[in-house]
């Protein structure tokens, strides 16, 4: 059996939503270079609290890149309240599974999104 599922490889080879949103109103970063993975999420949230656009940058392995790609797809066009519910398990399931020792990559995606939303909320409350 291959190390990664076809869905992981597809999202790794053709990652969705790669890049930067210049006028993002929520940015979250998780992970660190010493551990070998960093994920950065950019959100553009509109007045109706809908995630209009999302982009990511990732330094990391195959599953880190695939997890970011899948997670951004799962929250794009969704209300912020729904994005906050996104679990790493759901990301891993949508990827048709991750190897046991790569599950932390999906956690990283969940955390980076949560941080970006927190950033949005703290900016809004200023």
């Amino acid at each position, binding site marked *: 059996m291959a190390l990664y599922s076809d869905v992981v490889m597809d999202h790794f080879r053709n990652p969705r939503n*790669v890049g930067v949103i210049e006028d993002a109103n929520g940015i979250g970063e998780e992970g660190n*270079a010493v551990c070998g993975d*960093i994920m950065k999420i950019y959100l553009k949230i509109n007045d109706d609290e809908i995630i209009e656009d999302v982009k990511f*940058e990732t*330094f*990391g*392995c*195959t599953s880190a890149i695939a997890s970011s790609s899948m997670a951004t797809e799962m929250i794009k066009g969704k209300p912020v309240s729904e994005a906050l519910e996104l679990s790493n398990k759901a990301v891993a399931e949508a990827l048709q599974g991750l190897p046991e020792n790569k599950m932390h990559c999906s956690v990283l995606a969940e955390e980076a999104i949560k941080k970006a939303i927190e950033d949005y909320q703290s900016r809004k409350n200023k």
Partner: protein
Amino acid sequence: MKIYADNAATTKMSKQAIDAMIPYMEEIYGNPSSLYEIGQKAKEALEEARERVAKVLNCQPREIIFTSGGSEADNQAINSAAKVGAMKGKKHIISTTFEHHAVLHTLKKLEKEGFEITLLDVHSNGLVDLKELEEAIRPDTALVTIMYANNEIGTVQPIREIGAICRAKGVTFHTDAVQAVAHIPVDVEADNIDMLSLSAHKFHGPKGVGVLYVKKGVPVFNLIEGGAQERGKRAGTENVPGIMGMAKALEDATNSLEKDTAHLLPLRDKLIAGLDAIPYSELNGDREHRLPATVNFCFEGIEGESLLMLLDDKGISASSGSACTSGSLDPSHVLLAIGRPHEVAHGSLRLSFDSNITEEEIDYIIESVNEVVTYLRNMSPFWRDLMTGKRPHVFSE
């Protein structure tokens, strides 16, 4: 293009080595300990292979112990020398920080059993300092074990000088020569080696077979107890087909060593120059004292596993020392040993080829690595931070 660039991990078997094995599976399959004809014929072949291997290493056939590979040879050499040392009250062993795990984990086990282990620094160039070795040797030093050539970065130690120092001080010297034998000239006599490990699958021979050379007069204990094979030093029915394949592969590689090296060196150096031209990249290990076909680089801002997967898509098989490929949380101990910080060690790439490599393939590798590194950097927030000055560079441009 399909390029297998992971020959330091293992090699494709040569047709000649395969052909040398087949008769010992199909016809002369007897147990060398058996008295009837196909047993005795197998025994003859085995002893003839021992002579051929001994000739290549420049030693006596009786100094060759056939093993199941490099790991077993390393384990036997070190455990045996430790036991011999302990009997004389010597419980100190010297090695280096960047040995193969077959050596390091054996030393760790001995440390738990009360041995004192000194691991010599290999500095930023991946080389041992002879003066530091000399200073580390004590009256109670039982063994010095230093690898001939490193499997990850390819640096080659001054083994002859190391051997001379050990001999002058009367300390047993073992070298893990798994990456060296059949790739550079190795002569146990001239190199002052007491014990040496080698493994057939690193030079187009079969997997699961290797050699422990033990110089006459150096006592050796068993790792595997049982029958009286290998003059009682290694029990188990001999892997005759494997040994025949190994002897053939070793002879062939030795015979073409000069020609292969002349072909490989310019290509290796072209690859180094090509990858050096990528901004914020650096060669790992000394430029000169290295194997003719192993090149290892670190690239800032990217992670090695994704680099490997994208190279695989381009038909290139390589390896990396990133944590994601080592299966642990830390990147390669070898890269850390030469002082690479974690974040750079994650972005490493090892390319190791064989004598079939062509200049066209080297060009393709350089172009592909360039493309993939650029692509991954463009999506890396770490790279962005480096380029915007939010984080300091480790390498210069």
